[in-house]
Every structure is written in structure tokens, then in C-alpha cells.
């Protein structure tokens, strides 16, 4: 699911040129995080993309049956993610490309997710 959204992000980047963009697309018929894909037409998953000027892509998947998240809330979440990400990058023990194991990053993400639920 995340891979297909990455493809869409790439398409949009090439269409929009260089700039910090904040994109959004809706996707009906969800993919579940298990092996078999089940189709639930009643669920809607919104996937939001964010690309930094260093071409790092963030994808956020939101179940929109929860609450309608406003655009600026999504934007500020991405900004927080971006800031925490740069902090992780500054950790000398982190190798770019590795999975992020940082406790600070995890706790920021968890608190952000709790806030919107």
C-alpha cells in the first residue's frame, strides 16, 4: 500500500517541479496490513504525502472514518515529523537508510497519533 503511494508521489513530484509540496489523494477500497487484501468499500483511507527538499518522502495513512482531519493539522504533523527526522539524522549512530530506532522519534510519533485519535 505504501509502495503504490510512493509511485503516485513520484508522479506528482515530476509534475510539480522543485518545491516543498504537500499532496493529498483519496483511495477507496482499502488494503489491510495483512497478506490477503480485503476490500471494504465503506472504509476510506486517506494517504497524505510530503516530500522534503532533500527528496525524503513521508507517507501518512489516515482512516478517514475517524475524524475529518483538517489540512493544516496534517501539515503541522508533517512538519513535526520532518523536524524529528532531522534530529534522528544528527545522531552519529544512525546510518542514513537504516530503519529508525530512535526513542525520541517513536515517542513523538506516538504522541502525535494519540492526539488525533
Amino acid at each position: 500500500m505504501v509502495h503504490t503511494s510512493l509511485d503516485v508521489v513520484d508522479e506528482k513530484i515530476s509534475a510539480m517541479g522543485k518545491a516543498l509540496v504537500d499532496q493529498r489523494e483519496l483511495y477507496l477500497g482499502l488494503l489491510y496490513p495483512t497478506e490477503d487484501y480485503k476490500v471494504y468499500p465503506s472504509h476510506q483511507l486517506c494517504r497524505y504525502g510530503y516530500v522534503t527538499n532533500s527528496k525524503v518522502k513521508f507517507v501518512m495513512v489516515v482512516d478517514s472514518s475517524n475524524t475529518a482531519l483538517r489540512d493544516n493539522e496534517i501539515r503541522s504533523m508533517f512538519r513535526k515529523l520532518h523536524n524529528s527526522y532531522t534530529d534522528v539524522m544528527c545522531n552519529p549512530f544512525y546510518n542514513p537508510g537504516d530503519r529508525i530506532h530512535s526513542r525520541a522519534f517513536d515517542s513523538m510519533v506516538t504522541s502525535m497519533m494519540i492526539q488525533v485519535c
Partner: protein
Amino acid sequence: MSSELFTLTYGALVTQLCKDYENDEDVNKQLDKMGYNIGVRLIEDFLARSNVGRCHDFRETADVIAKVAFKMYLGITPSITNWSPAGDEFSLILENNPLVDFVELPDNHSSLIYSNLLCGVLRGALEMVQMAVEARFVQDTLKGDGVTEIRMRFIRRIEDNLPAGEE
């Protein structure tokens, strides 16, 4: 000068040592050695710039270290606490340590004393002013403690003026 470059440089140094030595104890020793070599040189710069005179006792030394030296080189002023009854040991409490900004110790380096360079610097610098001391970390924010604490212990005055050895 921006502190990020300094912090990242120190971080690169420590991670390179970790790759070279593979076990934390050796890295700690290397950091201490490197710190010592810095300290024996840094003391000259410090004395020239700060113009402090000879300290009369260890308490004065503590004050100078915390209020002048740390301020001059790291921009922080640790507090001095936990004096031993004999007046030969004290603690430096660092609320924040610029060397460890953004650093998170991975689990496989739990016995690494990341800022051990500082202990070597203190040891080397004081040796050049005829004081043999021991400096060690007893608390570290990287290991989950609330503050970073360096314990300084006065061993003896160095009477013989042999040139300081390089380690």
C-alpha cells in the same frame, strides 16, 4: 561558530572509534587518552586567556573549572556539589552537555562512555598544573539519568616537574 558542527564532529569521532575498536571499553580508554592529549595543551590556552592565578586549594580549582573553563570552551556552567568531607572530591553537574545533542546510544553500546573525552581533558589539564586527579562519569543523560555528573577526585600534588608524557 555553530555548535552543530562541533557536535557532529565529536559524534563522527566516537562512531569511528566504535568501528575501529569493536568493544566499548577500548573506545572509552581511547577517548580518555585523546582527551588527555587535548588537556595538556588546552591548559596553556586556558591560562593565557583566563589569566587566573594559582589556585590555593581544590575548592578554588573546582570553581575555576566550572565557572571559567567550562564556560569558555563549552558555553555551559556546571554546578559543583557533593563535596566529600575531606574536601578532596566533588561532582560537576551538567544540566545539558553540548557534546550529546541529538545523540541516542544504541543498545549494543550500553557501556560506552560517550563524553569520556571530557574526563581526559580535565585530567591532562590539571596534571600540567601539578595536580593528579581522577575524573569519571557517574551519571549520564545518554543512559537515562536526569543529569550528567562527573566526579572529580584529587589524588595528590605532583612535586616532580617531569615533562608530561604523551599517552
